[in-house]
């Protein structure tokens, strides 16, 4: 579905990603981890075609997005939706207008039809439509904002891949739990691929069983939890150190 081949990327001659390669299959879930500033968001932006790599290829369904023009990219973006860090809700639009954004802009559906879809989607992400549909995003809590953003991405084009950039960063444990559940629900019920960027390992373990670790723009690990646990690459161990305990716990749970 998505393949990165030897992708090298720099902002203004400052190298950000070096020779990154991996591929994600249909309906596969992957977590990309790494310290902040290591280039995780950049990978998602490259997959969306928002940036172009200096070297290498990014294939979506075997088509190279790096050589496409804007219109062709639009077609690819109908298959991939991204939930940006902090949600990136349009703050001049109400929650309803945010969630229905794609349908309002691109379809000839009537307002009431769109509103019905929006209400249904708000229900899916676990929010009470009546209370928030006419509210502006800045009146929502952090957790609600993330869920509205997920709803907006899901309602756009029935994407087959969802990219989440740090969906739980800055949320309290309860809100984190709800967002993680929602991501899993969306993945399973819609039978889609999910790519989640996070630097919280407990979240990562709850979301997927394939982990990619990025460190200083290089891919230093790609494998499952067992492999991650025994990996002795120093940069991976460094990054995992604070979370040793939680990895151990999950492992125990799995073996019980």
């Amino acid at each position: 579905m998505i393949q990165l081949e030897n992708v090298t990327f720099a902002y203004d001659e400052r190298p950000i990603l070096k020779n990154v390669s991996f591929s994600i299959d249909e309906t596969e879930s992957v977590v990309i981890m790494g310290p902040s500033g290591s280039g995780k968001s950049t990978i998602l932006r490259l997959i969306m075609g928002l940036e172009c790599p200096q070297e290498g290829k990014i294939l979506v369904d075997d088509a190279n997005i790096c050589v496409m023009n804007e219109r062709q990219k639009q077609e690819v973006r109908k298959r991939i939706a991204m939930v940006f860090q902090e949600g990136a809700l349009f703050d001049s639009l109400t929650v309803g207008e945010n969630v229905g954004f794609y349908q309002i802009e691109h379809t000839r559906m009537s307002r009431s039809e769109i509103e019905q879809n929006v209400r249904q989607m708000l229900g899916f992400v676990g929010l009470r439509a009546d209370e928030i549909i006419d509210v502006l995003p800045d009146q929502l809590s952090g957790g609600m904002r993330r869920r509205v953003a997920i709803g907006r991405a899901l309602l756009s084009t029935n994407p087959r891949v969802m990219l989440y950039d740090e969906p739980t960063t800055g949320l309290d444990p309860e809100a984190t739990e709800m967002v993680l559940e929602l991501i899993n629900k969306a993945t399973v019920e819609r039978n889609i691929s999910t790519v989640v960027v996070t630097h919280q390992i407990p979240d990562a373990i709850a979301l997927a069983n394939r982990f990619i670790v990025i460190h200083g723009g290089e891919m230093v690990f790609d494998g499952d939890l067992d492999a991650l646990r025994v990996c002795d690459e120093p940069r991976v161990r460094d990054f995992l150190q604070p979370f040793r305990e939680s990895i151990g716990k999950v492992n125990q749970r799995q073996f019980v």
Partner: protein
Amino acid sequence: MTCLSKAATIGLKHERKYAIFAAVNSWLKTFAWDFQQLFLFSLRVIRGMVSRKFYISETLEQMYLIGVGSLYLVLLAGAFAGQGFAIAFSNELADFGAKNYLGRIMSIAVVRELGPTLTGLMVAARVSSGITAEIGAMKSSNQLDAMVSFGIDPIQKLAVPRLIALVLMVPALTIACDAIAITGGWIVATLIANMSTAIYWSSMKERLIFGNLFIGLLKPFVFSFFIAFIACYKGFSARGGTKGVGKATTESVVISSITILIVNFFITKLVHSAIRGYL
């Protein structure tokens, strides 16, 4: 020992000299690069303007925000600046016994110079800061990328409506400014300079001829493009979070104000020689 320190001082001197060159060089490079980016951005906005997709409700909203929102400010500024001009001119003209020409001079000064520049500067201060801050905040919270990912071109959705709104509203605001400044002149003429209303208005109207009105409306029309391009460009290229947006906003106001004054000079100079017969 002394030799060493001498060498060090010379080295330091050289370094300082080079540091200045390096600073000037890097400043020039940044300036040239920014200028080029601004130019390319402007071309994209113009191309966005002629594309099929047109956001009419955004444009109307911006027209309201820019036009109605700036009206009080422009009227207030115009009224006081007009009266100030009139007091200064009427004193000067009285010395030559030419007080009856006050209307003529007011009409030329206001319509050709004061109205357009004052309105341009007021709009630059009030509107370009707003545009840069709004678009910059959207950029720094990824809203522009979100728009792109939903298949919407932010240039068409954000920049084009603002440009069109400015192109329509800045000339309209200039007319309002002209009117109130000339009225301010009339208040001074009748209450302070003891002139008759009829003389003021008739001599004022004498100079409301095609050439003056043409310059007076060409200027705000041209200014509006510069304000829109600079303000939107600064917003779209804002970087570095809240602080970066603040910096972009300040630069947007400063650059658009200076640009208005410079462009004003060149229009006055060029158009004067081009349509002298009509002035």
